[in-house]
């Protein structure tokens, strides 16, 4: 192995393929123009040389024989799987003609721009969409926006900024930095951090903290590696996290364990909160959540009495009934204990150097595209006018409203979709059949992706092949550090990067001329607020932390006047305080204080139906080797997790006559799927857990089979239209019901 002839390129992982919301520094080894290996970069403070299974499998992903490497045009009916290879020119010409025609007949808003999860795609897709003139940026079928947005919205309303558990990730020297203090306790709230790096948080940072002495409180319906090692394991009924948080607030307030000085000086609405939480004593929480009241007390006391302590939370919080309200209650835990922007608490997380690569919020969109355009387009944005919190906070379409609009054509018809690295039918959408039926009727659909998947097969008229992170330049400022992804090899086949495709398309479709000639010009334009550019960052090894004193660097910025536009001390909220009583919620017509809402189905809400479907089904159990619907075709990964598996308690399985490894039907009023049973005492007797987004790329891709998505995608048991009052949260992804039965053949 003549490794000496290899060239090493330092880069940042953040796109399809790497398998997460990214951030890892990597070494890409190249020989004869091909990537031979991808490894972790030992000098990168984010991952310090480590890398997950998905990152390490990148070469097999890149050079996979099934990868689509040329533009394709559909030649049969939708779903027939008949494609013809075409040139980029033909593809672009076709798209340009169609989309211009649709714009002149129905308006630009009739075209939706659809993305999957948050990666480097967000910057590129909004760039194209605003150039075309549509306001409709959407994660199609993501019921109740149940992916980080409810949490982000609640934090924005409460303290004007977002906060994350402090595992020293904001400091270049990490744990060695003298400013850093280790959290005494970390509450892991509804997440399995060893299975991935959600929301820009490297999961194994928790282990780094544990090794140094942090203790754990784990809130999870399942027994996990983390709960085995926790001081307290709150094994609650799925969907009841809100009442756990409210009862913990009740204990902390009534026992006087909160940070009185912080609350007095920096919080607004404490008395109102105090009054509200009287409705939620731990005994009431016990009745609802199955968790002994004393265990809730113990968790509350440990957290409040040990400062600093941090909370790391997961996506299930978003999918609770009224997800933004549950988020608000959890946010109040760190607020009233003063664990905000302190070392080892929940530190305020801002995009490094103030650079926006990916506009999360309405405010950022306005910054990038101008208030006029955003305001004008918002008048047409689907769902924004129904939900003030969506209009005020998130520049996205409300997905539950979208599906109705696609079906009814009211108030205006949706005619076309630009779908970029998003597997709507095969994983993203709740009730995928409903989306399939509605989207099949659209006049024109472009899919930009790496592989064929249930969505591209079912819907694409034109398929544009996109390249992986090793074949493209990109940049990233999702929290910190500021980083660049560096193109290490030429694009495989004729594929192109998302940014290249979207800039080229934007030049053809824009109503006013695009001022950028190259993608590099866009990057440098965005990076200039950070006093840097792509080449400078690349020369430094691909990353840089903000300088000392920068507004995007911790700690205690509220004391220093670094959070508000007016430069005054305090938080970026109407009152300048942490709003326990949220003025912004009030302004959006919502209850300013947190409350508990019961899942729509289950032992409490629908006891009769629950007799028929007596198990609580929680979906989205993460696998450490897959990211959402990705990676099922990569042998190195699939070998490790070959089948869609339902976890079921051993005694429960014995009762219904299911043995370990047997195939079962998982059924509820909405449908039936097939899973393989893993019989294990780690499951709660009344709860089964299922991974999301399963499809079998080795099976027939043509309709109706569509890679077996109808058989194995658990979203076939979920529905749209359960959104909370704010438009956020409230769907049945985590607190669903089902019955399980052995498949007899």
């Amino acid at each position, binding site marked *: 192995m003549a490794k000496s002839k290899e060239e090493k390129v330092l880069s940042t992982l953040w796109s399809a393929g790497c398998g997460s919301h990214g951030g890892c520094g990597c070494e890409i080894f190249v020989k004869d123009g091909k990537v031979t290996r991808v490894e972790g970069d030992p000098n990168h403070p984010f991952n310090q040389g480590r890398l997950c*299974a998905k990152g390490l499998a990148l070469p097999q992903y890149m050079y996979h024989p099934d990868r689509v490497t040329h533009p394709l045009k559909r030649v049969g009916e939708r779903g027939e799987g008949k494609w013809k290879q075409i040139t980029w020119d033909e593809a672009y010409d076709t798209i340009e003609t169609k989309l211009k025609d649709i714009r002149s007949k129905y308006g630009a808003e009739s075209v939706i721009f659809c993305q999957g999860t948050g990666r480097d795609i967000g910057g590129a897709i909004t760039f194209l969409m605003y150039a075309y003139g549509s306001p409709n940026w959407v994660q199609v079928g993501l019921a109740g926006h149940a992916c980080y947005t409810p949490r982000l919205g609640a934090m924005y309303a409460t303290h004007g900024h977002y906060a994350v558990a402090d595992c020293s990730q904001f400091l270049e020297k990490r744990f060695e930095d003298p400013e850093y203090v280790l959290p005494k306790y970390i509450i892991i709230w509804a997440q399995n951090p060893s299975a991935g790096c959600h929301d820009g948080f490297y999961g*194994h940072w928790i282990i780094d903290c544990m090794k140094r002495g942090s203790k754990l409180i784990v809130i999870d319906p399942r027994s996990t*590696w983390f709960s085995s090692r926790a001081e307290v394991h709150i094994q609650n009924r799925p969907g009841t996290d809100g009442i756990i948080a409210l009862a913990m607030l009740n204990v902390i307030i009534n026992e006087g364990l909160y940070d009185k000085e912080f609350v007095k000086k920096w919080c607004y609405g404490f008395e109102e909160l105090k009054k509200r939480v009287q409705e939620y004593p731990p005994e009431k929480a016990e009745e609802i959540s199955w968790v002994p009241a004393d265990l809730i007390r113990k968790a509350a006391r440990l957290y409040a009495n040990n400062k600093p302590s941090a909370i790391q939370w997961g996506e299930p919080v978003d999918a609770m009934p009224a997800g933004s309200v549950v988020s608000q209650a959890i946010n109040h835990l760190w607020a009233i204990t003063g664990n905000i922007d302190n070392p080892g608490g929940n530190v305020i997380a801002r995009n490094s150097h103030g650079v926006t690569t990916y506009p999360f919020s309405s405010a950022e969109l306005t910054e990038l595209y101008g208030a006029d355009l955003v305001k004008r387009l918002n008048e047409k944005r689907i769902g924004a006018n129904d939900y003030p919190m969506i209009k005020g906070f998130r520049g996205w379409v409300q997905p539950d409203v979208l599906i109705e609009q696609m079906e009814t054509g009211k108030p205006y018809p949706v005619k076309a979709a630009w779908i970029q690295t998003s597997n709507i039918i095969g994983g993203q959408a709740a009730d995928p059949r409903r989306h399939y039926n509605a989207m099949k009727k659209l006049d024109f659909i472009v899919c930009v992706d790496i592989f064929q998947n249930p969505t591209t097969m079912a819907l694409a008229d034109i398929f544009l092949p996109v390249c992986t992170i090793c074949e493209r330049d990109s940049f990233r400022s999702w929290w910190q550090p500021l980083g660049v992804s560096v193109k290490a090899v030429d694009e495989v086949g004729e594929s192109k990067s998302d940014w290249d495709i979207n800039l080229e398309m934007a030049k053809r479709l824009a109503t006013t001329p695009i001022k950028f000639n190259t993608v590099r010009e866009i990057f440098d334009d965005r990076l200039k607020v950070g006093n840097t550019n792509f080449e400078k960052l690349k020369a430094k090894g691909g990353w840089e932390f903000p300088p000392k004193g920068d507004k995007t660097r911790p700690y205690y910025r509220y004391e220093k006047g670094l959070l508000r536009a007016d430069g005054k001390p305090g938080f970026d909220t109407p009152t300048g305080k942490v709003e326990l009583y949220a003025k912004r919620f009030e302004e959006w017509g919502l209850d300013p204080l947190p409350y508990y809402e019961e899942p729509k189905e289950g032992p409490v809400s629908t006891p009769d139906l629950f007799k028929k479907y007596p198990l609580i089904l929680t979906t989205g159990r993460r696998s450490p*080797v897959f990211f959402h619907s990705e990676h099922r075709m990569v042998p190195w990964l699939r070998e490790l997790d070959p089948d869609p598996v339902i976890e079921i308690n051993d005694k429960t399985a014995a009762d219904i006559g299911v043995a370990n490894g047997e195939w079962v039907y998982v059924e509820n009023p909405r449908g039936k799927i097939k899973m393989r049973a893993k019989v294990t005492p780690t499951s709660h007797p009344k709860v089964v857990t299922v991974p999301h987004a399963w499809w079998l790329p080795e099976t027939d891709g043509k309709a109706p089979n569509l890679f077996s998505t109808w058989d194995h995608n658990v979203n076939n048991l979920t529905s749209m239209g359960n959104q909370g009052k704010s438009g956020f949260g409230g769907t049945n992804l985590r607190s669903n019901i089902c019955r399980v039965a052995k498949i007899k053949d």
Partner: protein
Amino acid sequence: MPRNGLLIQYDWCTGCHACEVACKQEHNFTGGMVGIKVHELVTVGPDKVHTDFIPVTTRFCDLCAERVKGGEQPACVKHCQATCMMYGPVATLAKAMEKQPRSSIYAPK
């Protein structure tokens, strides 16, 4: 030449499978061949159910012979997300093991 091996402090192993894929990538193993496998171990204690993971080297582990020649760590050791693996002479590992609970040494070659 002292005999080398791997010390794995399995109490920290989270079952993330990075070591397995690192090994496959390093050796370009296909068809399920691999130098290390991670097993889930579930035990029921008096008050709770425990989940642990136990990595075990296989007959295909060559301790990254090629790679370590250049002074690199074995691929699994470098990438272990819980940093719970150590490579070196067995005697050195045994010394380190005296201070590490719940660990094992593998000397595959």
